[in-house]
């Protein structure tokens, strides 16, 4: 593997390209970059199409990465055309901080009074935990974003199909026999076993429609914590007029970059809500394939449904049957005087196991606890 001929300047240029791809969100690691150099050396330098193939095979790890890498490559080689075909994405590589769809407040107009403001609210970490995130100003939002680190999601457990040796439980026949075989067929001690424990999958559905706008940032940060910090598998989808899987985008470790990446993939920010149809699509596409089956499903939505509430109820029932536990988190639930009167909420409530509030960091911590025990 180390027999790659070294063309120092060319290698440097290629490594630069790999780094640029990394900045654009392609998961480039040093060994991948080395594989890239090796692949280019194998295919021969100086051929852009070959470089593209080499990069696609060695640097990318999913269909999303391919378009990103193509964009970077085109930007890197400048706008020259060599009949390579129209495969490349037409736009320049997306810088990770743009197009973030009102996720976080812009840090541009930060004045000198920030420190003063900070002191004024210094007593307030505990207060902030209980404040409605929709009512926060930019500075408070920034401080709250830091507090999300304190949430420690733990995956709920399920019993797996397999067994593990255990002190108590049922007799583990194969192991007992093997042990006795080792002693020449003499009956040895009984080996016992129990069903092994596996983390249960958690599926988060984040409503990104217009009515949820003030909460979108906080809910995505919560989802990001689940994806990066939970001990088990987590899948995140946004629902609105469409269903988008954003798990991979949220897997970026830095929350701000992850949210920006999510902003890139979701086409229906702040649109309408067609929860029923979205749920149906989700269950058709992923639920049947087993993603929702036996999972803990958390729906983060206000239930203001523009579509048909009957369809929503029907799909919620389907979801309830497929999932191990369904948790509905409504940002308005915790507010005084809230009554679940909207058509969407009423249709869904009979099929939901837990109905929680979700407007402040403290309520998010409650949610983490409910999921852990599910």
């Amino acid at each position, binding site marked *: 593997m180390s027999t790659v001929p070294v063309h120092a300047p060319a290698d440097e240029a290629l490594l630069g390209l790999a780094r640029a791809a990394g900045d654009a969100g392609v998961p480039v690691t040093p060994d991948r970059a080395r*594989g890239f150099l090796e692949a280019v050396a194998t*295919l021969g330098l100086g051929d852009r199409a070959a470089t593209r193939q080499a990069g696609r095979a*060695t640097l990318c790890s999913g269909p999303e990465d391919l378009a990103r890498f193509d964009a970077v490559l085109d930007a890197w080689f400048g706008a020259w055309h060599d009949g390579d075909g129209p495969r490349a994405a037409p736009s320049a590589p997306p810088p990770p901080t743009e197009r973030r769809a009102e996720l976080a407040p812009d840090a541009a107009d930060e004045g000198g009074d920030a420190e003063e403001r900070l002191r004024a609210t210094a007593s307030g970490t505990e207060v902030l935990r209980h404040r409605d995130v929709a009512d926060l100003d930019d500075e408070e939002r920034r401080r709250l974003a830091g507090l999300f680190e304190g949430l420690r999601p733990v995956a709920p457990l399920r019993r797996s199909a397999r067994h593990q040796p255990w002190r108590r439980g049922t007799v583990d026949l194969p192991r007992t026999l093997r042990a006795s075989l080792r002693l020449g067929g003499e009956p040895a001690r009984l080996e016992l076993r129990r069903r092994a424990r596996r983390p249960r999958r958690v599926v988060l559905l984040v409503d990104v429609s217009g009515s949820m706008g003030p909460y979108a940032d906080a809910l995505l940060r919560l989802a990001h914590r689940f994806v990066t910090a939970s001990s088990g598998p987590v899948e995140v989808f946004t629902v609105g007029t469409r269903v988008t899987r954003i798990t991979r985008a949220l897997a970026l470790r830095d929350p701000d970059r992850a949210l920006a990446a999510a902003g890139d993939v979701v086409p229906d920010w702040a649109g309408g809500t067609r929860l029923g149809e979205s749920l149906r699509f989700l269950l058709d596409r992923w639920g049947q394939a087993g993603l929702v089956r036996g999972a803990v499903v958390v729906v983060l939505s206000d239930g203001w449904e523009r579509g048909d509430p009957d369809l929503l109820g029907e799909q919620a029932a389907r979801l309830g049957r497929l999932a191990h536990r369904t948790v509905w988190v409504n940002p308005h639930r915790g507010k005084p005087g809230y009554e679940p009167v909207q058509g969407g909420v009423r249709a869904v409530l009979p099929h939901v196991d837990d109905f929680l509030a979700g407007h402040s960091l403290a309520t998010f911590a409650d949610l983490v606890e409910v999921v852990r025990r599910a």
Partner: protein
Amino acid sequence: METVDEVAAALRRTGYVCDDSLAVVVHLARRMQRPLLLEGEPGTGKTSLAEALAEALDQPLVRLQCYEGIDATQALYDWDFPRQVLHLRALEAAGAAADAEEAEKGLYDERFLLARPVLRALQQAPAVLLVDEVDRADDEFEAFLLEVLSTYQVSVPELGTVRAATPPLVVLTSNRTRDLHDALKRRCLYHWIDHPDLAREVAIVRSRAPEVPEALARQAAEVVQALRHEADLVKPPGVAETLDWARALHHLGVAQVDLDSAARTLGALVKHREDTDRARRALARMVAR
């Protein structure tokens, strides 16, 4: 098969029509001795690539079908316990078991070793090892695969290490029902197989089902392409379905696809009840055009 073009040509001779980028990755996988990770929609020819490669290289194909709960004893090797016990009993009966240590040593002999696919691929190398639908296996199994794929050797404690003289060409396929672990992906060369374009799909049908006349193959491929892009199906038909459908039409003696013949053979193309209705409506629209 020393250049990209030769790879493509050799694959074509076996009846596998591949595009340029796929030939490049195959070439790279052979030269760099890296496993090849193929992802893509079901029915785009991931598994058949491995079969075609084995045929083109004239090497045995060893296939490991993954499923939930698969573990090392099903992938690597296992001892044949019943035969070992029988062996002991036979020794007893013959009264030959003079030396206990000898008898025990005799138990861990190659003839009592059940070689499972991965070990078999290493023993038979050069070979093509197909690890099919690796996304169905559990994460632990991926870690185990990673270990084998990075060293191309397996150690059996009682026998010693089995090392491949030449590393087998490893092809992993995944339908993306879940994300594979990044460590495994990093070890592999990645390729996403898309649905082919019209010209390539016609070529595939012609090559795989030569009995189907050109005109029918083209029509069938056109309809499938349109269904894939327009009909909004739960499970868009893959190339495998196109092949089945073209064959089905041919068996019924159809020379020209029309609404009636298409409706009668739809079962070869779409496999969901909801899709049947949608496909039928889309077909009607297409005919009306």
